[in-house]
């Protein structure tokens, strides 16, 4: 495959991780707390696609979105509401534990070897062949990712609830003092987070149809790294960071020799470490800004 082909693939994975970053970043923005279990929301969404394999595609997509939003809200109610005001570290550890526990649940219920999700596999067909290797799914990903992010920006900057969300993200206490109904804002952040998790589940499984119990954790680890790389306190920067990590990971995977592929995660993380040492506040955070301490 030519470098254009690798580039196209890298963009494709970048969009997926950008959406993972949105999914984590929305909740972080409002609550200043990280939901590591968000990966398991994606995983359950992916399994729901497998469970609904005999149903029409539209129904499967809707069920997936529904499942992800519902699980996101359950996590909000049982973990984030009781822990509101707790330190960021507390929720990080709790959701880390939840993530592990759920991974066990997936293993018990769905098996270790994974389940194949064959949905929209025709999207893997080639649009531009030869050494470009552009597949439909890449175009769909860029389209869906772009539209979703544009809608999000529209809501955040063009609606009253968006103003409320931004206010909450900037100054939680003052937002409440001026009368922002915080519970609604937080719920909405989890709903949006669930929707973007569903997007990831759908787009990712079209490309990589095998859903294994570790799917969610793998996605969230790299996605979270991406948000920190970009600058976790701003949604746009976090998303761009997610994109960069996905992109770099894919490019490195294409460039390095086959026998070194086991070192791919190491190389990706080395890239991230170097970037963060150079720019601790995030790749896209202007110099001189405060470093967010989590």
């Amino acid at each position: 495959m030519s470098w254009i082909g690798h580039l196209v693939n890298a963009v494709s994975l970048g969009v997926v991780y950008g959406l993972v970053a949105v999914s984590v970043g929305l909740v972080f923005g409002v609550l200043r707390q990280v939901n590591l279990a968000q990966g398991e929301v994606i995983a359950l969404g992916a399994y729901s696609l497998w469970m609904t394999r005999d149903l029409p595609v539209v129904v499967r997509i809707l069920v997936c979105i529904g499942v992800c939003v519902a699980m996101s809200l359950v996590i909000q109610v049982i973990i984030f509401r009781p822990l509101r005001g707790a330190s960021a570290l507390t929720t990080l550890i709790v959701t880390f534990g939840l993530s592990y526990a759920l991974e066990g649940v997936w293993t018990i219920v769905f098996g270790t070897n994974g389940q194949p999700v064959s949905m929209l596999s025709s999207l893997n067909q080639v649009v531009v062949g030869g050494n470009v290797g552009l597949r439909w799914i890449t175009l769909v990903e860029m389209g869906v990712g772009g539209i979703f992010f544009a809608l999000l920006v529209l809501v955040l900057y063009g609606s009253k609830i968006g103003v409320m969300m931004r206010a909450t993200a900037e100054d939680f206490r003052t937002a409440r003092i001026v009368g922002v109904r915080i519970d609604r804002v937080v719920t909405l952040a989890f709903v949006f987070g669930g929707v973007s998790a569903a997007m990831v589940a759908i787009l990712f499984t079209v490309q990589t149809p095998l859903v294994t119990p570790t799917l969610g954790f793998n996605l969230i680890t790299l996605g979270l790294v991406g948000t920190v790389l970009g600058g976790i306190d701003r949604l746009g920067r976090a998303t761009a960071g997610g994109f960069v990590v996905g992109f770099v990971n894919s490019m490195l995977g294409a460039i390095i020799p086959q026998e070194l592929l086991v070192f791919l995660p190491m190389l990706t993380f080395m890239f991230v470490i170097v970037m963060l040492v150079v720019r601790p506040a995030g790749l896209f955070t202007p110099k001189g800004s405060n470093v967010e301490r989590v």
Partner: protein
Amino acid sequence: MIPLLRLDNLQVTYGRVVAVKNVTLEVNEGEAVCLVGPNGAGKSSTLLAVMGAVRSRGDVFLRGTSTRGLQPEALAHLGVAMVPEGRHLFDTMSVKDNLVLGTLARRRGRTPRIDERWVAELFPIIGEFASRRAGLLSGGQQQLVAIARALLSDPDLLLLDEPSLGLAPVAVDAVFEALERIRAVGVAILLVEQRAQRATDFCERGYVLSDGEIRLEVTEGTSEDPESLMAAYFGR
């Protein structure tokens, strides 16, 4: 007559630190009351407790009803507005968005006494920088926006925490002129200030708070006696 706000033996503690030991005070409908005292006397904590933004013991009654357990947003929707210390505008957002947030707590089903038009007349200057980022304004301009934001909820009670802090004398005058007009439409004011003289001149009644306790209640009669005021202010 039931006072608009009544604090009964209010206490606020942060961990082991007692910020407010014992505050009992009243604010009547349409009345301007000040709470003066030195740094660390517990003034801000008292206001935050009224707003439900910090945990407190004792009782807070709004129009005779206890506000125990109510969150700040609920109090905002009951007609209490606050101008926090240090203004706390949403710095990254435009002045206009800050003001939109101010209207959130407006109570439904009543014609507002104070609306966008009234505020625009009170602070015509805000129109000039409505589209600017709030964080880029001067301290004096920010203070006017903070007051405007609080007013747009059309509150019955306005809590002001050190509105003159860090402002140039001209800006301080502008703030107090605005407060006069706000009082004139019947909004009750609870004003926290370190500038005791300016505050007691403005308000009908005042309380001197020191070491978390009310030391003195100042009415129009007693405010003539600067010595007792000073004694109370410095806690003896």
